[in-house]
């Protein structure tokens, strides 16, 4: 049975990885057809020089950085509070936000921003995208940081109070340093989730805040543009590296 399982596992791994590997390989293909005609970096050069891509990438980066910063801070503070004592309503809401289909979150936010436009004259744009990203990223941050907090012994904070530190000082000088790897891992996760988001972003982005996933989506819909292969490969490896880093940090 062991040999059967191993053979099956090989097939399963091939199934999981071949599509991406093939994509990566053909991103270096000299021709635009799916017949191998020699190695070339043309598509990468094209991608690099495309102004629309550059702007979209810059937008994605900016959104991801700001949203990650906000979500990590808000999520870490919330995780500490939940660690001290659970808040059933917040826990339930966060969990619900995780299981809610993206399309539903997206359209509900679109409807919400319609009203903010009516009353506060807030238009759709980078800021609405950032707000949306912060909203759905918090749950991820809370999960990772809370898991890390639960590995701490409660006596640690008591020892700090005992020696003369206030609750706030304890949080800053003892708790935060102790969970720093967890916070970093959560931030990397939030960044990845934000950078890759298409559904929600496409609904709440304005006309001048195109993100990289939106561009890729448009290109994919239109069909056969090998530049997509190049960007896709880049994204996969960049985000992959981040995720590996995040995993390593969670284990420290």
């Amino acid at each position: 049975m062991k040999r059967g399982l191993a053979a099956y596992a090989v097939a399963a791994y091939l199934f999981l990885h071949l599509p991406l590997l093939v994509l990566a390989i053909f991103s270096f293909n000299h021709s635009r057809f799916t017949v191998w005609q020699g190695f070339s970096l043309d598509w990468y050069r094209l991608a690099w020089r495309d102004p629309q891509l550059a702007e979209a990438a810059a937008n994605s980066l900016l959104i991801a950085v700001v949203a990650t910063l906000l979500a990590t801070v808000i999520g870490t503070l919330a995780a500490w509070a939940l660690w001290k004592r659970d808040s059933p309503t917040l826990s339930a809401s966060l969990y619900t936000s995780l299981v809610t289909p993206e399309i539903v979150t997206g359209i509900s936010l679109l409807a919400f921003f319609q009203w903010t436009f009516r009353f506060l004259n807030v238009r759709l744009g980078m800021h609405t995208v950032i707000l949306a990203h912060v909203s759905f990223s918090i749950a991820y941050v809370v999960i990772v940081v809370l898991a890390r907090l639960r590995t701490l012994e409660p006596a640690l904070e008591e020892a700090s109070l005992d020696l003369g530190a206030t609750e706030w000082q304890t949080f800053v000088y003892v708790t935060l340093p102790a969970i720093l790897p967890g916070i970093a891992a959560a931030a990397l996760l939030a960044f990845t989730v934000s950078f890759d988001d298409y559904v929600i972003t496409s609904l709440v982005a304005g006309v001048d805040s195109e993100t990289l996933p939106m561009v890729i989506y448009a290109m994919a819909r239109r069909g056969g543009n090998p530049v997509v292969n190049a960007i896709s490969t880049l994204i996969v490896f960049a985000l992959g590296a981040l995720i590996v880093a995040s995993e390593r940090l969670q284990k420290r």
Partner: protein
Amino acid sequence: MPLTPVLELANLGKEFPGHYALKGVYLAIDTGSFFALLGPSGCGKTTTLRLIAGFEEATTGDIRLNGQSILHLRPYERNVTTVFQSYALFPHLTVRGNIEFGLRRRGIRDTAKPVREVIELVQLEGKEDRLPAQLSGGERQRVALARALVVRPDVLLLDEPLAALDPQLRKQLRAELKALQRRVGVTFVFVTHDQEEALSMSDRIAVMRGGCVEQVGSPRDLYSAPATRFVAGFLGAVNWVDGSGVRPELTRITRELAPPEVRTFPGRVESIMFLGNLVHVETRLTSGERVIAEVPAGQSAFAPGDCVHLWWRPADELRLPQ
């Protein structure tokens, strides 16, 4: 000798949802003494410690430090520090960092001298830059001690500090801890469930059960003049015969007839337990009770089945008040 004890507990009580962890405890602890809270798990000794430290809020009563009530002060406002059972060393700080922590919270910048002094005190020279993960159990305990002592607390609380160590190390550290306390002169309040530990280290012991203090006294007084059956049984083995109690090491056993002036109880030897330097002779009296007589190994010539007589001096009897 100061007139006020350094620490006083007056009618201290703590109620948790569903049960009373502590019911109306009165204690007065003298300055510079080594005081033990002794009792089985659930007796309230740890709750008492946590109330003194400030990690729990009292339901009733008062806690006075040097005459002043500290009942409503937060842990960081009390000049009381704790050595935790798990030591709770800050994992991201070195030994030096851990020890400096309390000093820095008090705004003390020149930490070099006090840190050096306390490191010499606990014999951790050369380990100042190590992280807790790189220390042994005994070394971590010493860091916990140093960290708590360097800030010069009025009272040092210790929550079963020797429980996590292996028996050999434990015995050695008992002496060291006692010597340390004498040297430093700080009042130690020590929680333990181990009567041997309490008896060997303390100046005075409070034996607790079910949230109350059953008796307070010096080790010798508690051992030879226990106030209740519980205290008697908790501090050592007791032979209960016909309403009286007597310690096994004071229980005489003989094959011939005993002195006529004392009460004698005949019986048959059931088993012999060899304990190295001592022998426990387990005997079943004709009146039914099982009694253990402790005899130095050299003087034991008994075997199971022997007919023997047990007796003791009246002065050696445990006098329990009715």
